[in-house]
């Protein structure tokens, strides 16, 4: 492997990690508040779809990004109402939303365009070279020659971190995920806080989906998220629910994926499907190693009952 290949590989890792990171940051917010973010796969797919269709109609990427966030929030609202108001099981509800999103996007894709899948070639969010910095050796081409949403995703790690650690609202959110009764006893409303956290998660996940359809591929295809939401969940566990560590988790998975793509070009006597499995296998292996030590929010998945 020469210099150029390594640069390309690292740069690709960051690009692949971008949608995962957005979804994972949303997931961190939802799970910190005590709601399992299993539905992010569906919210991500919904966001990819909403963004793509909107851009197809309006040709405006900003409106498309907004639409992707709204799509994610709408799907998240289902999770919020079901888990908070009706105290359903978080896992089952999340999986239901995933299946719903898969079916509904495929249906709407055809339904909205007269029964046939439209050919979508969308304008994509372009790469922005940051002047001066992009000329740095090694770091320049890797870090400062990326699409806009990538910068945004990595930048968002900082405010999410500060929100959770340094603000009273973040402290209350963490308390709701650890011991909602304690938060309630000092005047917080755990139900409302959880619902809002899930919907914020939906916005993040929707945006993560838009990165796929509007930045990476410029189109929408059925089930295009293809398990990326679950990879983001793995990154959350690897990162133990803290934004910066979750970012490293996403980068790890991104690197594995980039490597897998690269290896496919080597012409090894191995099925490409097997190679495509590697990022998931790596995620699984890391989880087996770390998962047991991880301490999740104490009240995650548990409904809050006022006594």
């Amino acid at each position: 492997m020469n210099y150029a290949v390594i640069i390309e590989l690292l740069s690709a890792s960051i690009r692949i990690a971008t949608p995962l990171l957005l979804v994972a940051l949303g997931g961190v917010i939802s799970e910190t508040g005590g709601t399992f973010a299993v539905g992010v796969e569906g919210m991500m797919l919904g966001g990819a779809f909403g963004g793509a269709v909107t851009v197809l109609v309006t040709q405006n990427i900003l409106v498309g990004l907004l639409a992707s966030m709204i799509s994610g929030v709408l799907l998240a609202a289902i999770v919020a109402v079901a888990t908070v108001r009706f105290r359903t099981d978080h896992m089952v509800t999340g999986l239901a939303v995933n299946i719903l999103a898969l079916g509904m996007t495929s249906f709407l894709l055809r339904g909205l365009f007269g029964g046939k899948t439209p050919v979508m070639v969308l304008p994509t969010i372009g790469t922005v070279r940051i002047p001066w910095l992009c000329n740095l050796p090694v770091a320049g081409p890797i870090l400062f020659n990326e699409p806009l949403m990538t910068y945004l995703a990595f930048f968002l790690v900082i405010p999410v971190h500060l929100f959770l650690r340094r603000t009273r609202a973040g402290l209350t959110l963490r308390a709701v995920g650890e011991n909602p009764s304690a938060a309630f006893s000092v005047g917080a409303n755990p139900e409302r806080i959880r619902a809002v956290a899930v919907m914020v998660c939906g916005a993040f996940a929707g945006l993560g989906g838009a990165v796929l359809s509007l930045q990476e591929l410029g189109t929408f295809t059925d089930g295009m998220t293809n398990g990326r939401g679950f990879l983001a969940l793995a990154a959350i566990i690897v990162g133990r629910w803290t934004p910066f560590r979750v970012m490293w988790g996403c980068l790890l998975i991104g690197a594995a994926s980039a490597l897998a793509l690269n290896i496919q070009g080597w012409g090894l006597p191995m099925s490409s499907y097997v190679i495509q499995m590697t990022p998931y296998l790596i995620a699984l292996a890391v989880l087996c190693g770390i998962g047991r030590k991880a301490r999740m929010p104490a009240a995650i998945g548990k409904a809050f009952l006022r006594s």
Partner: protein
Amino acid sequence: MSPEATVSVSPMLEMRGISKRYGRVQANDAVDLEVSEGQVLGLLGENGSGKSTLMKVLFGMVKPDRGTIQFKGELLARHSPREAISTGIGMIHQHFMLVEAMTVLENIMLGWSRAGAWLRREQIGELIRQTSLSYGLELDPAALVGELPFGQRQRVEIIKALVRGAELLILDEPTSNLSPPEISSLLTVMRRIADQGRAIIFITHKLGEVFDVCDEVVVLRDGRVVGKSLIANATRSGLAHLMVGRDVSTELNRVDRRPGAEVLVMRGVGMRDSSGRERLHDIDLSLREGEIVALAGVDGNGQTDLVDVLAGLKYPTRGTITVSGRDLTRATITDRLANGVAYIPVDRATTSLVPGMTIEENLGLRDFDQPPFRRGFWLNHRAFRKQAEARISEFRIAASGPDAPVQTLSGGNQQKVVIAREIGRNPKVLIAFQATWGLDPGATRFVVDQIMALRSHGGAVLYISSELDEVLMLGDRIGVIADGCLLGLAPRNQVDITKIGLMMAGHRELSGLT
């Protein structure tokens, strides 16, 4: 404080004619309560006497049917707990409202507007340090609450209330889970808080503590105030009488009896949990017929593991357990039952009873697979009913009938069902773990009397409790469990209470002195 001073100051809190009815139960009936600055008021009463309802009304958790509350000259009505806090009332619940995964500092800042939207960690940390110094409540703001012992967590709750400006503190049975040294330090702190011009309502049913710290005491029974007195004019027996409504002889009539043959013998019993931690360290114990061995100890020092090992819920990793010479170290629970081991677990709602099942079913849970409760393949309901009727009258269980679900009974009557089932079998060995937990003095006395009765019938009893008074009252031999070790086991006439208190607090070196 002289009586004149109390009269001249208008009280900080005045509750007048508070009434609250839940269905057919009159929880509070025209209750009056006054607390003045600088006063510690003891609120004494059995469970169900209306103490908690009254305090929930004060704290805004429950709306009263009638009555008024004046606090610092202002009328409090239809207020929420949040408003109660902001007017200066603080409540320390029996179950702490703390987040274990957070630091002391974070717990105190939680939901508090003065902590700032952008958290002011340094300032609040400094405030905590100052407050804890001035009240003698040593506390490290950076410590993780989950790693603090129980007494320290209580300090977090107290400081949380104090820094938020609580002038009236309600402490709901704050000494239940503390070791004797922790209790005396808490009482000192309470006194100091009152001396700084704040007031405290101290809810309890332990008479000794009332005399140690209170200025005045109010006794509730059946939702009414049945007595009110300055502490200087009160007597222990008088208060006990008021609280229970009848004479409770505080002395047991203990018949000295020579213990018989060894029944339960533990030799070098140790247990290591799945994470490799030693939960029990080489416990040696022999229990004889007609003898009660009572073990004191603060919760979480291995009591649970000890009873689990004896009851067969867990197996020891070392050592042997025999009952009347039979090795039961790894015997099944059924085997143990057949060999005369009975067990009263700590938690009525989960381990002892099936709350949704009826009294007769719960009473039959131990022997349902034996005749007469079994007839061939089928259960014999008539035998269940017959046993239940006998036990209900023998143990004076107050219930609508044998087919009443256990969850409809009061805590005291639920425990009577457990006692009736376990002692009714006439066991050779009874393991009783916190058998009076959450019971009021009347029901506690019933349990104690039944255990003494078993003793006079030659049963061997291992009585484990965090209530030192009970341990001292019941035990023929008395010891302490601390950190998984059995310490200082000695006959009752050779027991040194100070030493027991220190051992409970974890001073292991003292065990060598006995």
